[in-house]
């Protein structure tokens, strides 16, 4: 088949490829026809005032089309059966248009609007599916694009796959088909102070996993930080130029600066953050947020270098993927000022 693992190609002809690459990027950005955004192509999001306007105009437009689709769905029951197929097709097109509207607006809409509109679209489509299987008897023949292969197994019922997702056995780290050298990090430790200065090491990714009652001090920049299964720990870390991914933390305190921060399955933990984009939580409870409070000699330069020199205010703009509504999520809160810790100084790494 056409599949091949082809890193060698890339490196063999790296310079030619790079030239081609640059030319292409240039061409792409020159044309800049790009983007399905409703305003000027390629422009940055409108200022806050404008985005408020667009949000309300989006909502009224969205509401209008949604109601119209719903009423057309209702009318299908009374329709001439020979015209049903046509009507369903039209409604289906309208739903697709509505979805497109959401997509086009999603960069300026508040997150809960995006999520709830998305859900509404999905519900409409479901309603359409239900109605059409109820009103149009299954055909014996169909000209649908036949798949080239047949799965021997019975097809999964709709939705089953998504629901089963969480019941699968936990993935085993040991089942990788390739031997991987342990990457930099601290693993399987308890009751220790774990300190590392990574300046000058050109570190890529750094991992903290299975730590219990430890204090972690990390000086310098990493590109990515993975955190997995920490209990009763304190993590003081210098800037991360890519993203931080945290899964399973309980009773912990984190001081982190990064471009992106994703927090999954955390309980009763405090996060002191500086972050360029909106931090997100998923399956969390009792997590609280405050601004970054770390110091070591030279941290200002490291922060500058990581383009995290300035406070962004994003530490409090948390998106909860498990919370669809406009009201504040019950899963996270802003840490009251009088409960915040003082600036932590880790200049003296091992002290």
């Amino acid at each position, binding site marked *: 088949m056409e599949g091949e693992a*082809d890193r060698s190609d890339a490196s063999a002809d790296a310079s030619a*490829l790079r030239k081609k690459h640059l030319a292409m990027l240039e061409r792409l950005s020159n044309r800049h026809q790009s983007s399905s955004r409703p305003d000027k192509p390629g422009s940055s999001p409108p200022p806050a005032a404008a985005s408020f306007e667009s949000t309300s105009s989006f909502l009224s437009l969205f509401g209008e089309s949604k109601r119209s689709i719903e009423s057309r769905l209702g009318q299908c029951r009374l329709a001439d059966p020979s015209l049903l197929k046509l009507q369903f097709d039209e409604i289906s097109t309208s739903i697709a248009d509505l979805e497109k509207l959401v997509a086009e607006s999603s960069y300026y809409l508040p997150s809960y609007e995006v999520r709830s509109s998305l859900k509404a679209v999905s519900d409409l489509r479901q309603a359409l599916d239900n109605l059409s299987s109820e009103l149009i008897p299954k055909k014996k023949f169909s000209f649908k694009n036949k798949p080239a292969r047949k*799965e021997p197994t019975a097809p999964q019922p709709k939705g089953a796959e*998504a629901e089963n997702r969480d019941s699968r056995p936990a993935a085993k780290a040991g089942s*990788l088909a390739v031997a991987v050298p342990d990457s930099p990090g601290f693993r399987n430790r308890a009751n220790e102070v774990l300190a590392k200065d990574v300046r000058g090491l*050109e570190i890529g990714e750094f991992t903290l996993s299975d730590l219990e009652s430890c204090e972690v001090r990390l000086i310098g920049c990493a590109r990515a930080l993975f955190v997995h299964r920490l209990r009763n720990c304190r993590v003081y870390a210098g800037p991360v130029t890519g993203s931080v991914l945290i899964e399973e933390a309980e009773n912990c305190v984190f001081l982190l600066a990064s471009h992106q921060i994703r927090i999954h399955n955390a309980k009763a933990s405090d996060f002191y953050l500086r972050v360029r984009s909106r931090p997100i939580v998923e399956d969390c409870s009792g997590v609280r947020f405050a601004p970054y409070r770390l110091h070591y000699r030279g941290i200002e330069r490291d922060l500058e270098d990581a383009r995290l020199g300035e406070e962004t205010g994003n530490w409090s703009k948390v998106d909860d993927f498990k919370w669809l509504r406009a009201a504040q999520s019950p899963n996270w809160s802003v840490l009251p000022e009088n409960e915040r810790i003082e600036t932590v100084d880790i200049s003296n790494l091992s002290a």
Partner: protein
Amino acid sequence: MGLLSIIRKIKRKEKEMRILMVGLDNSGKTTIVLKINGEDTSVISPTLGFNIKTITYQKYTLNIWDVGGQKTIRSYWRNYFEQTDGLIWVVDSSDLRRLDDCKMELDNLLKEERLSGASLLIFANKQDIKGALTPAEIAKVLNLEAMDKTRHWKIVGCSAYTGEGLLEGFDWLVQDIASRIYMLE
């Protein structure tokens, strides 16, 4: 290809391709799309719903659907399967711990009848990170060799940071789709 589907493809808007981009959260999908489109990639939040980008690539118009990969919203992926010409699966090559998850989600996706005709490009992203697995290693972990023989696929190492590998991947995908869909010209 059935007669009707051929007609449908011919009637389709000039040279349009629909590309679905999925993968675990944090793998770099949004960064890749913005990079290939020459946009600023310095502030990107995790994707709450999805983004659509329409870009002109060579003589084709690509409609790229970049769908969020957070667990909560993976169940929405199925809403975007219809009419997909090209599937891009993005892997964070430095996230060793979640490679099993990654494999399982990809396997699920490939069982989808509605995606069975789509060309599959796998981006082994974040190659700039020290300690990242190579595309060959990723291919092994994901057991790509065992893929259905009728599937057109390719794995390409890339970095959305440097841009390395992105064009190589897109070039292949677009050519592969074009040779299937527009072969009648």
